[in-house]
């Protein structure tokens, strides 16, 4: 249990401002074939929580425990969010609610459609078994909206084996939504797809996230998927939770930043507020500033996530007027990585309420006399949509 840590929740980052009642508490101990899962965590139930870790770290087992697909005598699971007045207790010492009595949706790594049914039959299987009263009252997505959201209106009459891998997974997601879940579990829904199919399905997941007002627990080993989807991140290793917190906290933890690909960096969510047709640029405003980047073709007013890598960010003491860099914003240094052995160091700065990381040489830090609390200018050489 020693490595199980509770997240430090700093109240000032918007992603983490959650009512302490609205959380999920999962405590499981599973031991089998030399593998031990030992988890005790409380995480917020707003938005998408990604459970991240390498294969074999126990993240799928944890998800299966939460859904009741794995039964362990040593477990507790309860959760609460805006949908409920009191906590949902699905497992404790005395009780174990079987999976089919839990109001959840579950998307498996493989689409796992029923082979003896058409797409329509698969969806009807869920529709027939969902509760009637709760659905009409407070579900935001009706059946047609679900079909439209996942773009599967044209495949309803087909059998599962007549679908592409991406279509199968979209049908599986639609089927899980048709049951009108109060919480959605997704176990690496993209892992069984090739890169093209991943690119095909990811936008559907992003839409899903914005239109679905229920907690989503998303297991993945892909930092890319986390950058695009996650609001909170639980990092697992060898059956234990090693860290968890908001996406920003996990990305900007100077001791051990979660890498986006090979690089440290941050992801900020912003809204497209201006377009420059002449230079094919668009301006994305985020909490604390705005950056220009290549026009992605999104509509004005769309929310997008942009990735700012530490290696593309530098600091200067004055607002340079003669630089080729378009994005220069005022900022305050809030933390400097302290590692005397290295040539490079990571510097965390506040731009308004957002945090950015800059990778500088330690020599530069010394020459510019950078220190915590100092007001400087951040120069963003490139930014890209995730």
């Amino acid at each position, binding site marked *: 249990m020693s490595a199980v840590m509770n997240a430090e929740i700093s109240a000032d980052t918007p992603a983490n401002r959650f009512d302490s009642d609205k959380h999920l508490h999962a405590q499981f101990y599973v031991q089998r074939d030399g593998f031990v899962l030992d988890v005790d965590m409380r995480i917020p139930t707003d938005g998408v929580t990604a459970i991240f870790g390498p294969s074999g770290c126990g993240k799928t087992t944890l998800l299966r425990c939460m859904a009741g697909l794995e039964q362990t005598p040593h477990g507790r699971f309860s959760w609460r969010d805006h949908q409920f007045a009191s906590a949902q207790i699905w497992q404790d010492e005395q009780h174990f609610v079987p999976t089919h009595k839990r109001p959840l949706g579950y998307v498996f790594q493989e689409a*796992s459609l029923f082979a003896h049914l058409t797409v329509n039959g698969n969806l009807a299987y869920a529709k027939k078994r969902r509760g009637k009263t709760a659905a009409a009252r407070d579900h935001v997505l009706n059946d047609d909206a679900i079909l439209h959201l996942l773009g599967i209106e044209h495949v309803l009459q087909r059998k599962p*084996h007549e679908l592409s891998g991406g279509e199968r997974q979209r049908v599986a997601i639609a089927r*899980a939504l048709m049951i009108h879940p109060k919480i959605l579990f997704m176990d690496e829904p993209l892992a069984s797809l090739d890169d093209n199919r991943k690119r095909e399905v990811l936008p559907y997941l992003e839409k899903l996230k914005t239109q679905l007002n229920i907690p989503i627990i998303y297991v993945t080993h892909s930092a890319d998927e986390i950058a695009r989807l996650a609001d909170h991140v639980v990092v697992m290793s060898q059956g234990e939770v090693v860290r968890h917190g908001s996406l920003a906290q996990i990305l900007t933890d100077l001791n051990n930043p979660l890498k986006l690909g090979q690089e440290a960096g941050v992801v900020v969510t912003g809204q497209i507020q201006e377009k420059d047709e002449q230079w094919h640029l668009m301006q994305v405003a985020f909490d604390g500033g705005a950056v220009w980047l290549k026009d992605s073709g999104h509509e004005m007013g769309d929310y997008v996530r942009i990735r700012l890598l530490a290696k593309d960010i530098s600091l200067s003491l004055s607002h340079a007027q003669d630089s080729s860099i378009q994005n220069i914003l005022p900022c305050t240094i809030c933390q400097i990585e302290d590692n005397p052995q290295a040539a490079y160091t990571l510097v965390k700065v506040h731009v308004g309420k957002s945090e950015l990381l800059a990778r500088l040489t330690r020599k530069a830090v010394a020459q510019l006399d950078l220190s915590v609390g100092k007001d400087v200018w951040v120069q963003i050489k490139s930014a890209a949509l995730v």
Partner: protein
Amino acid sequence: MPFIFSGAACLVDPSFFSFSDADLAAIVLTLKLASVVTLLLLVIATPIAWWLARSRSWLVGPVSAVVSLPLVLPPTVLGFYLLILLGPQGPVGQAMQWLGFNTLPFSFGGLVVASVLYSMPFVVQPIQNAMQAMGARPLEVAATLRAGPVDRFFSVILPLSAPGFLTAATLGFAHTLGEFGVVLMIGGNIPGETKVLSVQIYDYVETLDYAQAHKLSALMLGFSFVVLLLLYTFNRRARVSFNAEGSL
């Protein structure tokens, strides 16, 4: 040798299949026995197959072995022990008498009990194989879609294991039709009560009435072949449409 020519005769002469009352009684009895046994076996074998396919208990090995015994035992051995067990001196026979029932040997009920045991592996194994091939995933999916255990059985296990159930029912039926040794040991030779087709054929051969024996034998041969042909043709087609890539 009249039976050599009767092979052709059965194709041209409709009177070849005119059966005596005794033959008809044996045919009706055999079909009745096979039907009752098949229905009973589907009910009994399904939970056994389910348990064998799913359980991680150490008992799976011993139970599998017991269920499969009729595959290798001479039917006379099985019949002999059943006779001892169910007979008036046997523990089951005594219990039944104490409860006010007749003992089972030399009755239709005895044939049913013996046939259920004798045909058990032919019914358990196809169902078990189908359930193993299906795996646990469809059931987990069904559970996440609010299907309770009974619902899961009828909405997922049954349709996805349908080819297995069909094979099981067909093999159970056909195998019971063809049973001989066990019947002789426990059922004897009572017309209309325990005298099934195979015994009737044996009687004809013993009295050297080859023409009559051939009639019934040809009937059974043809029937069994057609049933198995239909079964394997259907299952081949079912496999092609079920095992398509990427689905369950």
